């Protein structure tokens, strides 16, 4: 993150812009793909709305189903957001792509499960799991990543190796059969929404609220506190912040701790809603990747938007794809990725390299 590197980056951006000016096809291609993407998105929204409200708003139509599917999508988006916010925080500050993020998620789930089984209240267990995973992340950052700052590919490869080790050790030390964490007392049942007489699991609503709260707290932390100012200074120009007397290494360590802790928290939430099992680590690493690629690496708002898009598309596609094509819903996730990248190669809120 030296000044020279920043200069090189700006030079690259200028050259790219210059190329798009001198090469009219590039600009045209961008516009055509943007219009096509917007048209495709509109068509998809209209199709879903037609299927949902085509038979009117009465409870005999498909409106109740639509509401439940949307809520499922939102709660899934909440899980994705909590996981991906840690991932994007670490990347935004340190340019480290932490490929062990999924392993941190699963580790948090197992630690949380262990605490809850030992009789610790759920809300305490979630905090403890976050702290434990944060500490693990901090150790990994100090031992493996601190000294090769800036070597992006090497760091990504190191974290891939660590995720192999962590994944195997978790299979060895924890029960590999799928389990679920019991939700906190008071959130075990369903609540009535007061709409069409729908009962919805209260813990899933709690996940939506929890994700919104975590997002708000993170936003306040980054926008309104001294720590946030220092973090943003470090993102913009690490060398300058360092020269102004900011202990950048301390900020990096704190951010890595926080990012890992968020993965651990998400693990406990996810282990309660879905399940705790080997394989969930890869699933949530993938969802974090897709969320930040869509939203733009290093952006909190991007993570929120990407999580919403991914969660809603996944849930809506599994219900509203035409008969016989529901098996293909997984491809839609990839198509979403393609469409966003075709229009904005660095993601919706991403800054050009």
């Amino acid at each position, binding site marked *: 993150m030296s000044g020279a590197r920043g200069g090189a980056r700006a030079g690259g951006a200028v*050259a790219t812009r210059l190329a798009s000016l001198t090469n009219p096809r590039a600009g045209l291609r961008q516009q055509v793909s943007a219009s096509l993407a917007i048209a495709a998105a509109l068509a998809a929204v209209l199709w879903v709305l037609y299927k949902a409200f085509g038979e009117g708003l009465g409870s005999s139509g498909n409106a109740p189903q639509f509401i439940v599917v949307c809520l499922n999508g939102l709660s899934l988006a909440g899980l994705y957001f909590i996981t991906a916010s840690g991932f994007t925080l670490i990347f935004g500050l340190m340019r480290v792509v932490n490929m062990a993020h999924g392993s941190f998620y699963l580790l948090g789930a197992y630690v949380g499960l262990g605490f809850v089984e030992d009789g610790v209240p759920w809300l305490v267990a979630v905090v403890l799991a976050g702290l434990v995973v944060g500490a693990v992340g901090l150790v990994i950052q100090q031992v493996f990543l601190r000294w090769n700052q800036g070597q992006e590919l090497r760091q990504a490869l190191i974290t891939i190796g660590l995720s192999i080790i962590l994944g195997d050790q978790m299979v060895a030390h924890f029960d590999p059969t799928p389990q679920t964490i019991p939700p906190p007392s008071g959130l075990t049942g369903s609540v009535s929404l007061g709409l069409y007489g729908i009962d919805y699991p209260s813990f899933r609503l709690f996940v939506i609220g929890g994700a919104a709260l975590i997002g708000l707290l993170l936003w306040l932390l980054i926008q309104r506190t001294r720590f946030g100012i220092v973090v943003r200074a470090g993102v913009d120009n690490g060398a300058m912040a360092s020269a102004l007397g900011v202990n950048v290494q301390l900020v990096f360590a704190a951010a890595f701790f926080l990012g890992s802790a968020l993965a651990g928290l998400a693990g406990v939430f996810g282990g309660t809603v879905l399940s705790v099992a080997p394989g969930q680590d890869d699933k949530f690493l993938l969802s974090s990747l897709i969320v930040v*690629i869509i939203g733009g690496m290093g952006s909190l708002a991007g993570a929120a938007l990407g999580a919403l898009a991914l969660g809603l598309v996944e849930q809506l596609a599994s219900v509203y794809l035409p008969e016989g094509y529901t098996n293909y819903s997984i491809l839609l996730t990839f198509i979403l990725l393609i469409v966003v*990248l075709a229009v904005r190669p660095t993601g919706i809120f991403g800054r050009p390299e």
Partner: protein
Amino acid sequence: MIRYRGAWTVGTRVVLVLVLLAVALVPAFFSTYFTGAVALKVLWLGLAAASLTFLSGQGGMVSLAQTALFGVGGYITARLMVFEAMSPWLAALIGVGAATAAGLVVGSIASGSRVIYFLMITLAFAVVAYLFFSQVSTFGGHTGINGVFAPAPLDNPTLKPTAVYYVCLACCVVAYLLLRYVGRTPFGLALQAVRDEPARANALGFDVRLHRTLAFALAAAIAGVAGVLATWQTTRISPGTIDVTRTIELLVVAVIGGLYRLEGAWLGAFVYVLLDTYLRGLSGRFETWIGIAFVAIVLLSPGGLAGLLARIDEEVRRPERKRRRRRRRRRAPRLGSALRRTG
């Protein structure tokens, strides 16, 4: 004659011929089990890893999509052979063509992104391909496709592996020579320019994305061939062949061998398959050891085993090297002249 960097010296040629001879004699001197289960796997795994090594070495693109493209080749071939009763050779051709086409599509999307984004986009594609093949019933769902028997002399790889072995070996040699050759064509040199200085190459009039996309499609074709060979050797293909574990396994093979040297792909495959075959039984936590070895190589020798060997080789031949370097300095810079030739 112009000597390119990396052209073979007489010593290297002798070593390569000896290695090839030794590899060719494996079926004659080793047991059927070793030839069928170990040596054959080294060949096709090395071929798949070579497609990744080519991309990362020549194009600076570390791709995690190679396993998925390998799967596209294998799956399409298996489906055409088993469900449509198509001729195996035609099916293999279509399978490799499908892998190349998939490579073109993925490459054209991912080519706009630099190293880290590229890694993530290709990983996303790999996982989506895995989920697609495991969910769609036309490809056999979770069980995959069984009973994929290659044409007559190759149809019994467990008991009579010799014929399959030589076909695999021929594919590997051709792919190795082809990828080496491509690296020295104007296209290959422009690809290196795009790898090192994308903005400058762009300013000189090279279409950066086009070069990356075409290289990706070429690597996809190689991965597709590896997929067909692997499917013929195991006579089946299932989603387990292309899941995230396999994706990471291929990366491990390429990194152990060395991400920047084509020979490293087979070297890495050799070491990995040996460990996998003979050490997995000794330790219950094989994956942990592989992970530790992987991290150790990334930390200590980023060039992998091939890089280590090259360093030793350089030490041995130092006097000769110095002489050549002095001679080289008098000529124009290599990359510049290459760019002029292509431009």
